[in-house]
């Protein structure tokens, strides 16, 4: 065989070998693809089978929900009116008023009133029904009507106010008495020392008033700083007097407490009447009538 023939045979064999290798490899790859596609088709078939009833079920659910929305929208508009209904929707869902109510196209033209916290008409109705209302549920402070105090304040804020909310907390009037939360010891006494606990027990409850003082200085009492007092202050220290701040008697001999009713303050007190003047008895108490005296005596005799 000539050499050219041998070379040709070798070349043909090489081409055939190349064809075999690549074609077999391609066949293997295509079989893998077929297996993968079979798996994918199986999964897709399950998807189709499982999702087949979804459309009908979701359509039915949407129909029911649409009926509910229609019912609630209609009821809201019927009971509150279109304008108030839009205001309530805007109060619950800020920005929702732009979309309007689905079954009321005119609602998109309504400028929503500010019914953001308390809807008076609805509040009164629900209060009459004895129910709570989920009004202003979107409020940062929570539903108003679930908070009794907050609901009351919010309702009151709708009306002209005197001193309801602004300022929110006015200072309260001072409470005086031994049980007062804040005790105001007087900074200055007028006429006499402040009674102590023992003296209060001895003299009775009336002495507590003296211990507490009448009006404390920080609230504008008579011993308050000049700036807090009226310009025409009527009674000054020269009239009201001042305490010595000590228990020592003002005189050298002091008060003779052993004489009781005949103490010097009683026996030596009072004005000096002129010589021969008749005492003024117009304010003296009248003696009992003789009839009364006789009746009293007769009563005593009958008892015995």
């Amino acid at each position, binding site marked *: 065989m000539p050499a050219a023939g041998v*070379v*040709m045979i070798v070349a043909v064999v090489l081409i055939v070998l190349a064809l075999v290798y690549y074609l077999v490899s*391609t066949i293997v*790859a*295509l079989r893998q693809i077929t297996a993968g596609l079979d798996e994918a088709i199986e999964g897709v078939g399950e*998807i189709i089978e499982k999702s087949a009833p979804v459309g009908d*079920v979701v359509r039915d*659910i949407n129909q*029911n929900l649409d009926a509910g929305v229609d*019912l609630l929208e209609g009821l809201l508009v019927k009971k509150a009116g279109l304008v108030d209904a839009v205001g309530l929707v805007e109060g619950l869902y800020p920005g929702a008023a732009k979309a309007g109510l689905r079954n009321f196209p005119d609602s998109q033209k309504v400028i929503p009133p500010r019914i953001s916290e308390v809807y008076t008409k609805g509040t009164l109705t629900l209060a009459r029904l004895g129910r709570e209302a989920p009004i202003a549920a979107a409020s940062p402070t929570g539903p108003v009507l679930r908070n009794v105090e907050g609901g009351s304040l919010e309702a009151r804020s709708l009306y002209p106010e005197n001193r309801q909310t602004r300022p929110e907390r006015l200072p309260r009037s001072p409470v005086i008495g031994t049980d007062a939360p804040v005790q105001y010891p007087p900074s200055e006494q007028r006429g006499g020392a402040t009674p102590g606990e023992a003296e209060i027990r001895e003299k009775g409850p009336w002495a507590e008033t003296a211990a507490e003082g009448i009006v404390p200085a920080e609230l504008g009492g008579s011993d308050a700083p000049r700036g807090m007092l009226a310009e025409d202050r009527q009674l000054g220290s020269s009239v009201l007097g001042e305490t010595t701040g000590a228990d020592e008697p003002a005189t050298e001999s002091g008060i003779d407490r052993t004489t009781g009713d005949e103490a010097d303050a009683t026996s030596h007190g009072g004005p000096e009447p002129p010589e021969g003047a008749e005492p003024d008895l117009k304010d003296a108490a009248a003696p009992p009538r003789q009839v009364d005296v006789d009746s009293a005596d007769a009563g005593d005799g009958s008892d015995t």
Partner: protein
Amino acid sequence: MILWWIGNALLLLVILPVVVYLLKGVLDAARNIVPSVNRIAAAASAGSKDLDAVPLLLTTQDQVKQTVEVVANYGGSLDVIVDDAEEG
């Protein structure tokens, strides 16, 4: 004889490389498809698994129906006991 040698040369230097190039391209394309098909199969399987909850939609359907019925009952009651808005 010369023509035979020329034919041999063409066979070895031209036809064989062209055949090899073309077959290699086909094989590469086929091999690239395999991972894509595998991913599609995995996705289809996962999607099918996700739809296992679809039967629960039947429960949802029933509950929505009951809820709307309750809302309708409440609405009817409110319609009776609450005054209508004043027109105008």
